[in-house]
Each structure stands twice: as structure tokens, then as C-alpha cells.
């Protein structure tokens, strides 16, 4: 009876995505993603992953806070960094071909980076919005006691939840991971791939609590 729900669907493809950036600005005018991690998940199985370091030809520098929090290493960038033109085709292919794009706080951050990345490379990003599952929004909905109902528009619902702030309600990855009792390398969070791994584990809990 509930076969249509994503938790039972073995065929749908999910692209989990997370960017690490120079700062928290929402526009390429003053911010650029220097790391992009992606997981390709089919049903419950992770079938592929990518961890790109992106080397931009730009005068923008990483902020002190961002460098400290994300443990940015110039040496790693020199060794592994690739030009944006080289990484974008794969990012686009994975995002465009996925049934759903999953991430934490996508609606208020990463989606804007996708938008500017697509636009910079001459592509329209708009079809991505409808495919987004934002675990931050869904977790908020659960904690507020207003979980998603199938009669609602999923994108609108997630926007509503993500823009609502309630005192004392914490939905960051660490808080959720610990609340769900997830075993994880919490000391290495803010590395995009480590974040994504936790994000996937959290999604695997959340999907049993929402009727998607």
C-alpha cells in the first residue's frame, strides 16, 4: 500500500550534494565553492561518489573563519584542484539525471551555488528546484510537529519549514546525528564528503518519519 514511498523505492536515484565555500555569501560575485562532494544513491545503495576540489581563476580568498571551520588546505588544492570547466559536466550530469537532489540546507545555501554555477557555464538551473529534498527542512518539520503531508506541495512545504525558526530547535547535522544515535566521525565534519556521509545516514532515518 505504501510502495510509492521513497523509503521502499529501489529504483529512484538520489544525488546527495554538499559544497564547501570561501564564505557564506550566496552569490558568485563574492563567493565560490572550492569543494563539491556528491554521492549517487540508488534505493538504499551508494553506487558512486565524487569529491572535487575546484581551483578558480579568481582574486577571491577564503575567509579566516571558513578556512578554519572547513580545514582548507592550499597544499591539497594545489595537488587535487581542477578547473571549474572540468568538474561542471559531471556535477551537471549527476544533478540533471537524478530523480532527487538531497542535501542539508539546500534551499538556503547550496541551491544558490548550483544556480550560479549553472548560469556561469551557460545553463539554466531552474529544473533542479523541484527535485530537492532538504533534510534540514524535513527535520524542522518533524521537530515542529508538522511533518510533510502528501497533499501539500513538497517544495513549498520545505521552503516554509526552512524559513521558520523556533527557539531551542536545533537541526544541524551534528545535532541530528547525535539525536538519531548515528555513529559517525563527528570531528571531521565540514569536509564535504564526511558531511554527506552523515547526511545520507540522517536521510535514512528521516525517510521513515515522513510520507514522501
Amino acid at each position, binding site marked *: 500500500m505504501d510502495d510509492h514511498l521513497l523509503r521502499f523505492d529501489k529504483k529512484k536515484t538520489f544525488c546527495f550534494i554538499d559544497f564547501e565555500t570561501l*564564505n*557564506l*555569501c*550566496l*552569490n558568485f*560575485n*563574492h563567493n565560490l565553492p572550492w569543494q563539491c562532494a556528491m554521492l549517487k544513491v540508488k534505493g538504499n545503495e551508494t553506487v558512486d561518489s565524487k569529491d572535487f576540489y575546484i581551483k578558480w581563476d579568481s582574486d577571491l580568498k577564503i*575567509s579566516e*573563519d*571558513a578556512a578554519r571551520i572547513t580545514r582548507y588546505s592550499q597544499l591539497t588544492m594545489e595537488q587535487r584542484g581542477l578547473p571549474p570547466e572540468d568538474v561542471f559536466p559531471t556535477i551537471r550530469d549527476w544533478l540533471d539525471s537524478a530523480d532527487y537532489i538531497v542535501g542539508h540546507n539546500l*534551499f*538556503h545555501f547550496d*541551491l*544558490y551555488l548550483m*544556480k*550560479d554555477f549553472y*548560469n556561469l557555464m551557460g545553463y539554466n*538551473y*531552474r529544473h*533542479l*528546484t523541484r527535485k530537492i529534498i532538504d533534510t534540514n527542512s524535513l527535520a524542522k518539520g518533524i521537530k515542529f510537529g508538522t511533518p510533510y503531508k502528501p497533499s501539500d*506541495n513538497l*517544495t*513549498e512545504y520545505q*521552503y*516554509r*519549514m526552512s*524559513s*521558520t525558526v523556533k527557539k531551542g530547535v536545533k537541526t544541524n547535522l551534528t545535532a541530528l546525528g547525535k539525536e538519531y544515535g548515528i555513529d559517525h566521525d563527528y570531528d571531521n565534519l565540514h569536509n564535504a564528503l564526511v558531511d554527506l556521509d552523515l547526511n545520507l545516514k540522517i536521510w535514512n532515518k528521516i525517510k521513515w518519519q515522513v510520507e514522501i
Partner: protein
Amino acid sequence: MKETIGFWKSHYSIGRSILTLEKPGESKPHLSDSIFDILKESDQKKFFLIEDSFSGFLQAHTIAKDNKLQLIFGIRLTATDNMLEKSEEALNKRSKIVIIAKNKEGINKLMRIYSTAAKDGFYYEPCIDFKFLKNIWNDNDLSLVIPFYDSFLHKNCLNGKSCIPDFGFCKPTFTIEDNNLPFDFLIENRVNEYCSGKFEMIHTKSIYYKFKKDFLAYMTFKCINNRTTLEKPNMDHLSSNEFCWEAIN
């Protein structure tokens, strides 16, 4: 192709625009652009100035008159069902409307509306209620326009608010904008759905700076006003460089 109407805003709407109302030819290079210079450059004879207060009205009116430009002035302000209700809960019922004056009497009425909103309805910002509007309203003098962003439709659908407008006294016109923001299509769908066969819809473009490249200056200005930094602007959805004159052309 549908005509898109520019809704200009000047720096008199504090923190919302980096355009000025300097006389044509008086703007200094490398400083802020004047709306009047842009209008002259693009050979426009008529323009909509939609401000958040009356501060710039006199200057705009005087310069427009001297330069034989038709100024259509409007105020964007907050509206609710009861402006005297002032609580955190009441904020959930507030959304934006635009009131445009059609003539001199319209300007007088708009001044009364704004004064009342700033005096009686003030709670964080000026606010008017639909009861007051109903009493003062005359379709010959005023037009009610529902802005694309922060309207009751936007707030109810995407921000989880409970704004209930009362349009029993007038026929509002709804605006549609496209600024390449990820949620534009959601609001547009709601506007289309709400207006279908009932209300007129027009395409507009809110203009806060001249060129797309000026977005960085605009963002810097917003951050200064918000006491934040470009590294951490802390402003939701501040991402589109489309709120400019260049994007309408």
C-alpha cells in the same frame, strides 16, 4: 512578448536601493546612478516610483516636472487585518501591498494612509489595515497592487504565515516578476492560480541598481545597513543580480 513595467526604488527607501533621485546630468561618475539619468538615457517619458516612504516624493515630483516626465508614485507598505494588534503573533498576519496614486487627490490620500500606518500602526515598521483602506478608498484616486515578493501569497505559501487580505473594497492588480530566484516559479504559480479569471496580472521588474555588475555594490550597501559583512551577509536569498534596469531591457 509581454510588456514588463519597471518599479523603480530610490535610496530614500532606506537600505533597499542604491539609485538616487539626482537631477539628470548631476550624478558623479563612479558614484550612485540617478534614476533620472537612466530614464533620460533610455528615452522614457513615464516611470513608476514605488518607495517605502514619502521622503523622496517631493524631489522626484519636482525633477520629474522640470524634465517633463510623468511620475507615477506609489508606496509599498505592510498591511494586515488589524493594525492595532501589536505582538509577535500579529507579525505572522502582515504582508506587503503597494498603493499607487492616480492623481493629486490620490497623493493626498496616500499621505493620510502612510501617516496613519507610521503613527497608529507602527510595530517595527509602518503598517496599515484593510478597514482603514476601505474607508478612505476610491478607485478614481488609488490603485492597489500586490507585489510579487512578500505578498500574502508569498508569505503564506513559502514562509508559513497566515495573512488574510480583504479586497472587498477594490480590484487589486497582481504582479509577476522573474529574477532568476529558485522560488519565483512557485510564487508565479500561486499568483496565476489565485487570479485566474478574477484579477488582472501584470509583469513588473523591481529596480534597485542600474547594471547586473552593480549587484556587488548593492550587496555591500545591504550588508552595511544590516551591520553584516559580505563574507556572512545573513540575508535570506540575497543572490540574484537581476533587480536592475539592465535586466528589463
